[in-house]
């Protein structure tokens, strides 16, 4: 049983002040120009893959958990959602048929439709390929998001089932 690096972003609720800069950063990172002003004012429809959940004093930024056994991957009828070797759960946009099964299945509400050039596709956190630390984590002024690159799943329950592939 070879343990492997898993990468995840965890929200720290106590530190989140609800400023939503993570959303801004995410939208900018996933824009064409990667410049905040162009992304928001010119490209239009800025789209953040993380959502700051807020209710009174409680707030935290919630994006894909990159589950060990993802609900969305189970539900995807087109094979567009896949678990990568490093544990990332990704949407292969060109395969997605926008059926919405993943949207209805993800208990975190982490998958939504994004319309690009008139075509709707499922969109979710991709942990910012090309960045060492995801944009949201880097943008948080208060360390309310931490990027964990731990070994293994760290989950007692999985005692019954080692979900880490060799």
């Amino acid at each position, binding site marked *: 049983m070879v343990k492997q690096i898993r990468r995840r972003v965890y929200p720290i609720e106590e*530190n989140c*002040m609800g*400023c*939503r*800069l993570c*959303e*801004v*950063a995410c939208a900018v990172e996933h824009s064409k120009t990667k410049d905040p*002003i162009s992304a928001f004012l010119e490209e239009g429809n800025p789209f953040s893959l993380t959502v700051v959940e807020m209710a009174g*004093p409680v707030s935290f930024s919630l994006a894909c958990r990159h589950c060990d056994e993802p609900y969305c991957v189970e539900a995807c009828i087109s094979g567009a959602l896949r678990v990568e070797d490093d544990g990332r759960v990704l949407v292969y946009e060109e395969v997605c048929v926008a059926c919405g099964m993943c949207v209805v299945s993800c208990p975190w509400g982490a998958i939504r439709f994004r319309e690009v050039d008139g075509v709707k596709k499922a969109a979710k956190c991709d942990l910012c390929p090309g960045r060492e630390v995801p944009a949201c984590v880097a943008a948080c002024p208060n360390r309310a998001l931490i990027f964990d690159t731990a070994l293994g799943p760290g989950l007692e329950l999985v005692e019954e089932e080692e979900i880490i592939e060799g």
Partner: protein
Amino acid sequence: MLYESIFVFPTFEVERDYEKCIVCKTCVQQCTFNATYYLPHRHKVVTRDTECVGCRRCEAMCPTGAIKVRRYQGEFKENAYWSPRDLKDLYKQAEQGGVILTGGGNDREYPIYWDHILLDACQVTNPSIDPLREPMELRTYLGRKPDKLDIGYNEKGEPELRTKIPPNLVADIPVIFAPMSYGALNLNMHRAEAAAAKAMGTYWNTGEGGLHRELYPYGDHTIVQVASGRFGVHAEYLQVSAAMEIKIGQGAKPGIGGHLPGGKVDEEISKTRMIPVGTDALSPAPHHDIYSIEDLRQLIYALKEATNYEKPVSVKIAAVHNVAAIASGIARAGADIIVLDGFRGGTGASPAIVRDYVGIPIELALAAVDQRLRDEGIRNWVSLIAAGGIRNSGDVIKAVALGADAVYIGTAALLAVGCTLCHKCYTGRCAWGITTNDPFIAKRLNPEIAAERLTNLLRAWAQEMKEMLGLMGINAIESLRGNRLRLRAVGLSKEEMDILGILPAGA
């Protein structure tokens, strides 16, 4: 503005560059004063300048740098006597008929004696010391020192110390976080102070609001206060502490008590202060059991008794006119440490008129007290802590040379974690999350980050202090204490120099 008094003139104006504003609404969410708001139907963020307090939180948080908070451009007719602030305060009082409240420290134009004092350096005849090559001692012992040491020999003929040394605090750097109560500050700030004090081998002070149980493990680095309201004072509180401090007065508001509005007294504060949730926490102006030095002595010894004479007791007073005589009395009453709080000292809430016009500068008070105690031959009975307006390591060095054993930093500590001196502490809405107990706003102060920043600050000051000691050819801070010969004055009158006990530059 519509529905607002026509007598409200803005102090700041917020300029938003709409070419850059991406309408992310971060500024709206961050402006706890509701000055900035969002108009959904116009998809636009705008600011009500009259509400802006100039805290600059919005500016700091704006992801595109679209915001500039600046001094209001509109002006009253020029008047060298009536300042715009006087006008606005007057209008406000004419409108509301109440005391004008403020927070922070005295921001009026008074002479800053620190800036009239210069340090000496070694040249040729006495070598300076390079702190990077040679050991440099910033450690300070705070507490009573014996009048003389009694040394004898045991049966084996070895020397041994016969004098019993009274309890002392050991600070690795002579900078201590000033008393700022839980209630005025939130728990996150207390957490940060405690962690930083521990990391730097120094102390922090609870202020008069008690110590949250979560912070008991930091007791060894905690000075606990006993103030006129006796909030949160109980046996365990005293026992976990490193030292106890009787608070008589505060530099920002000498002679008046404190008032924590009931709205700020939440569950945790109520538990810590030992008062019901939602009740006002009123600290009386005087301690109602202290009307004389003898009464003070009783309380000092009550505290010592309660803690088995194992901890030093400090007494904190505001620097007022006859501070030297009072300090002498306090030393004689059995205090181990005296804290002098100058008129620049900060506060969570005080009438502006008191903050601005009561008390005297710490530099003069400190010099006067140090001199008086020396003259009376009791300087070793107490350690002196100077508080109220210490801005940088230079102020610390000068304070030590004027006779302080250590300093308290309050405002400087708040600045380190984000305070922009908007002086709205009393509103409980501090946009930087420092002087607020609103659980939502308080989250803006991440104790981990704040502790790191405080630690960095102290580390930087320590480095600078070592440099300054070195250039004076001194290798231990204790050798500088009261060493006024290493100070010179510029631009001060003869009387001022006499009180400070320093010579003019060139002499």
